[in-house]
Each structure stands twice: as C-alpha cells, then as structure tokens.
C-alpha cells in the first residue's frame, strides 16, 4: 500500500518580530497511510501545530517537502480539511452559514449546498441549531461546527489541530467518542494533533510523539493495537499510556 501523505525531512524556521529566527521543526519524516488515524502527540511549544499547517499548505517548509499521492503540496487545497484549535468560526454567520461556506466558495448551488451542509450538521449532532450564531453555542458545540465545516467540503484528508484543547475533561471524552463515531461513519485519512495522551491512545491507530521544547524533533512512533471502541480504564490502555509517559520528558 502506498502512503497517502509523505513528509520528507521537514525543517522550519520562522522569522519573529522581523529579526529573530526561530527554529521550530527539525528533520521530520513520516508517512500516513490511506484511511489511517494518525495522532501527533507533543507537549506545548513542540512545533506540532506548525507541522500540521505545513501539511495543510498554509506554511511552506524551509527544508524538505510534503507529498500527497506522490505529488508535492504547494499550497492549501480543498483535498485537505483543517479544524482549528480556537474554532475559528465566522462569528457573523449562522451554524448553517459556517458549514456551507466551503461549498459556497466552490459555487455549489444553494439547494444542493444546503442539503450537503444539513447532512453534516446532523452527523455532528447539531440538528436544530442551524440558525444559531457561534456565540450562542458552548465550546463543544462550536467545535462540532468546525468539524462539520471541514467535512462538508469533502476533503480526502482531515487535519485536526488540538481541537478539544479548550474543553473540560468530560466534554472532551464525549467529543473524542463522537470523533471516532464520525470517522467510522465516513472513513477518511485523519491527522490529529494533541498534547493529551489519553486522547491520543483513545483515537489513534498510530501515535507519533514529538520532543518538547523547540525545535520539535521526532521522538518515537507507537502502534496502538487496542480494539475499538476503547475504554480509558482498560489495563492495556493504562499500561500503554504509562509506557509513553515514562519515555517522554517533563517540561515544567
């Protein structure tokens, strides 16, 4: 099986405040298979979001390149959908308006667009909230809109950037379960960035860990052989987590 996404020796430097060069990523190489759920796990400030933005095409790597189906990625495109950590909903649009925006950009006619958007609104469980504005929704609901918006554009690859970082522990578990359900309903290649190890083990087929502190470097790759749906309290789950935690470093 050929990989869907290949990152070849990616390094990234940022220019900060016009005069400071910051080394964010160093020599990242990884492969993502078709319909795989890959989790990138790293502490804060490890460049993991930057890696995701490079795959999305929003940033260009300073060195190395990203291939999708063997072709180099040069910019953002409809084939990859991104879900943002801070939701990034259009606060001037309703839930429906937010979800249908991608289709609208491509000039899909209104009736068709509404039908598709409605399908995804239902899929994420927001039926009845179509006319609400983002500020009327709770955090978990906002991120459902974010996920529906990305899905409605029918990308081949979903990129999620710490999507549940701002939710409380229980809502978060609930959203993880929902994410798994949605992924099972409409299989896609998923790259999921998080700093939460429970989330990583609960969701991932494979976990790539990054080392803390800039520049971010690859640490290890773990397979998660546990059957789905997984339970946070299963012994294998906890043991795997213990193993990964023990191998990672503490950043105070």
């Amino acid at each position, binding site marked *: 099986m050929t990989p869907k996404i290949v990152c070849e020796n990616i390094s990234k430097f940022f220019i900060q405040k016009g005069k400071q060069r910051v080394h964010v990523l160093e020599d990242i190489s990884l492969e993502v298979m078709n319909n795989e759920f890959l989790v990138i796990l790293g*502490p*804060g400030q490890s460049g993991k979001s930057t890696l995701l933005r490079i795959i999305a095409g929003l940033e260009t790597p300073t060195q190395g390149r990203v291939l999708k189906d063997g072709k180099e990625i040069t910019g953002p495109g409809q084939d990859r959908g991104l879900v943002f950590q801070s939701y990034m909903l259009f606060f001037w649009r309703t839930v429906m308006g937010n979800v249908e925006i991608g289709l609208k950009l491509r000039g899909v006619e209104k009736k068709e667009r509404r039908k598709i958007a409605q399908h995804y609104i239902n899929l994420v469980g927001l039926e009845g909230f179509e006319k609400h504005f983002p500020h009327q929704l709770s955090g978990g609901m906002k991120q459902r809109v974010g996920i529906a918006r990305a899905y409605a554009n029918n990308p081949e690859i979903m990129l999620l950037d710490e999507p549940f970082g*701002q939710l*409380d522990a*229980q809502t978060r578990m609930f959203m993880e*379960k929902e994410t798994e359900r949605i992924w099972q309903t409409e299989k896609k290649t998923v790259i999921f960035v998080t700093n939460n190890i429970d989330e990583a083990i609960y969701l991932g087929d494979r976990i790539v860990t990054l080392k803390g502190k800039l520049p971010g470097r690859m640490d290890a790759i773990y397979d998660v052989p546990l059957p789905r749906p997984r339970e946070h309290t299963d012994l294998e789950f906890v043991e795997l987590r213990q193993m990964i935690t023990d191998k*990672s470093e503490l950043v*105070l």
Partner: protein
Amino acid sequence: MGASPDRRVKIQVKNLTKRFGDLLVLNNISFDVADGEFISIVGPTGCGKTTFLNTLTKLIPATEGSILIDGKEADPKTHNLAFVFQEPTCLPWRTVRDNVAFGMEVKGFPKDKLEERLEYILKLVGLSDCANLYPNQISASMVQRVAVARAFAVEPDLLLMDEPYGQLDVKLRYYLEDELIRLWETLKATVIFVTHNIEEAVYVAERILVLSNKPTTIKAEVHVDLPRPRSLVDPKFIEIRKKVTELIRWW
C-alpha cells in the same frame, strides 16, 4: 455522610440548598470534612458544580442550610478560606513573590510573620528562583503553582481547588499532583478538590464525593484507602476509577 470517626470534624455542611427562583440547583446537601482531610468532588458536566462552589465559599448566599467551620458559621472575613481556580488568577502587575503574598496581605498577617512564611512557602514550592519574575514571564503550569502557593500561605481552614490542573499535559499534571500531596502532607490543610478528571480524583483524594445531575445532591461516597504514592496501573486503583466512572457516566 461522615468522615472517619477517629478524626475531628472540621467542616460541617448541613442541608445546603440553593434555589434560583423556582429552579432548584442544590438539593439538601450535607457532608462533613475531617480536620486535615483531602476530599475530591466529581460530577457530570453541568451538574451545578459552579453554584456548589460559590455557595460553599459564600460568594453567593445559600437559600437554606449552613456551612460550619469548627462549629461556627463560615465567613471569608473571619475564617481563612482559600480557593485555587481553574483559570489562572495571578495578578499580572505583581511579581511571583507579591502574588504569593497577596492572600496574607488581605488577611492582615503581621509584617514579620508574612515575610517569614513567604520565604518558607516559596522555598517549599520551589518558586524561590523565579520569585521576582512577572506572571507573563513564566509558563502556565508555574502560574498555577503560584496560585497554589498563595492558597497554602494563608494557613487555610479550608482550601478549595476547582480543577486547577485541567488543561495541563499529563506528565506535568502527575508532577503537580505529587507536589500538591507533598504540600498537603507538610502543611496539614483541609482540602476539597473539585475535578472533572476521575483519574485525578482517585489519585489525590482520601475520599471522593460523587455529585448527581441537577438538582445536585451527593449521589455516592467512595473511600480511597490506597497507600501513597499510588500507582495508576494498580488493579485496585483502576477498579475504583471504573466504579466512579460508572457513577457519573453520561456520554
């Protein structure tokens, strides 16, 4: 729900009830906390936890019932209450040192005692090195440690913690939880620790109170009599964790 009979009761919560108009939020909550006990409170999302805490700290008045500390009605002005919030509550215009001193200043500690205790606490929490930095110069976990240090500094009769380590990554959380246990053991405070994270609750507490959905009552009480330091992969630990999870599962 009582504490173990061999320990002195420090806090008594009796028939605590809160109504907003016709809406009953807290329904007749009663429990005791022993002197120096570490209690965790867990509950499903949206269980009226905020109201519960605000009533407990007297930020809002209870409709019925009373909270007694050492047999006297609790009052933030006379009792030493301390609260560590979920969101960082460091004053950005004060250094770490002055932030830790804030609670003692408000409580009117005499100057020499304040200085002495300040140095002691800073050293105990390991903040001496960054005592002169401002909150925006230190990491999120450090900010939360400052809040914890500030709370312990006032020798609290009751220390309430509302999910203080909610957004931190796991390794860091373990470290800070261990630190919290160490502080509690050294300084002998009475702690009520509220969290959404069941594993965390089982890890830190002697006793766990499980809240029900609205109107909130205490649904169950779970004693955690595991030796410390506790292991997360200990089958007994996992068993307790599963038990509590089942009690509050709503997803």
